[in-house]
């Protein structure tokens, strides 16, 4: 079996890796954004709940959360399919980190601009959607890229719940051929290519939405 053939076999699992990464990114963004928005309400009990959530999900390893969701929840009668388990686990962990990134970016939005918007007569929801949110997203880009690459690097855990992604394919192939060095090297190359692809995509998005003097360089 040539190295090229190994690459092709492993690349078949890359589809799942990309799918899990994108789905977890979307889930993480949704959770992170919701958390950041709720934290702006400054309600005592909401804040406590959000702090506990962020603290827990940033402290416990993803694999533990994944096992809790996939292997633990059936114990109380909740069966979560493998793909959903992976997306929920990664989404919750990633959301906890993204919430902090968003919180920092929101704090960086100029108070003067918000006061000007208020003085002009814009509603709070309009100030949030037209002033805070667009700036927050732009200022969060470097942090988001960091977080999304972390998600990609967590995706190999998907093999533990039976998702046939790159690592699952690599382990099966290595067990059959005993050519671990080439196979895992090939897996590394494929992850690198995916990583590079995502980075190029993010860079294009960053460039498109770049605003002079606003983005954190």
């Amino acid at each position, binding site marked *: 079996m040539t190295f090229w053939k190994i690459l092709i076999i492993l690349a078949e699992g890359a589809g799942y890796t990309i799918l899990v990464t994108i789905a977890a990114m979307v889930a993480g963004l949704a959770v992170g954004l919701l958390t950041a928005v709720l934290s702006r309400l400054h309600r005592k009990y909401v804040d406590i709940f959000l702090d506990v959530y962020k603290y827990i999900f940033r402290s416990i390893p993803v694999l533990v959360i994944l096992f809790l969701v996939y292997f633990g929840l059936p114990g109380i009668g909740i069966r979560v399919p493998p793909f959903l388990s992976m997306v929920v686990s990664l989404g919750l962990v990633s959301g906890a980190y993204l919430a902090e990134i968003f919180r920092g970016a929101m704090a960086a939005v100029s108070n003067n601009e918000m*006061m000007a918007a208020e003085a002009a007569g814009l509603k709070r929801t309009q100030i949030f959607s037209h002033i805070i949110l667009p*700036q927050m997203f732009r200022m969060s880009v470097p942090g988001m890229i960091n977080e999304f690459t972390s998600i990609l690097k967590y995706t190999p855990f998907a093999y533990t719940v039976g998702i046939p992604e790159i690592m699952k394919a690599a382990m099966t192939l290595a067990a059959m051929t005993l050519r671990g060095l080439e196979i895992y090297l090939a897996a590394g190359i494929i992850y690198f290519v995916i990583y590079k692809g995502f980075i190029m995509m993010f860079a294009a998005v960053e460039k498109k939405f770049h605003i002079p003097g606003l983005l954190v360089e």
Partner: protein
Amino acid sequence: MALIEVKNLIKNFDGKNILRGVNMELHEGRSKVVMGPSGCGKTTLLRCLNLLIAPTAGQIIFKGNDITRPGVDIRRLRQDIGFVFQHFALYSHLTVEENVTLGLRKIKKMKKKDAVEKATYELERVGMFDHRNKYPAQLSGGQKQRAAIVRALAMDPAVMFLDEPTSALDPQMSREVVTVINKLYLDNITMLCVTHDPFLAKYISDSIVFMHEGVVVAEDIAERLFYDHDDPRIRQFFLSVIDHR
């Protein structure tokens, strides 16, 4: 009837009396400048007048309605007041044109085409049309302040509030902005401006209100306040600000 009438306005912050019974009037088509030493309550007064800061006591009558009474539509009131800030406060993620059209579209509910037309007209008035597609970070201080003035002016407010519009600018940029505000003055735009700048005050005001420690101590035309006033507090203030220029 005055457009704005302020009666015995008081504002306390953490036990400190910032405004200690301010009384003043502003009539439609007139321009008034508020001057006084730092900490005398000028900016607080301006912010109380459009309820960015809630007054502790007193009355503000705007267009015949007491806006300090509960239940007043604050957003509706603010649409009638164009506010220009010392540090420009342009929305940094929007171009100059978008800064101007945001309020027109979201508050006045104008169609995009109409909002752009209005913005174009106002930007041309102050020589900012060529800069319409630039972001705030790409503008000089004077251009930023002119854009901020246009943003406020485009909403066709009943009155313009200007909070130290030239104090963050160097003399040349300051002159640019004074020229623009002077043009508004000559167009009979109702204005209330807070400033330390006697040059600006002289060229944009019908009268100057002098505040000291939270109260209005004098109101007169520039020439009579600036030079050899009987009140030592006023004389001292203008001696220092005029000398420093």
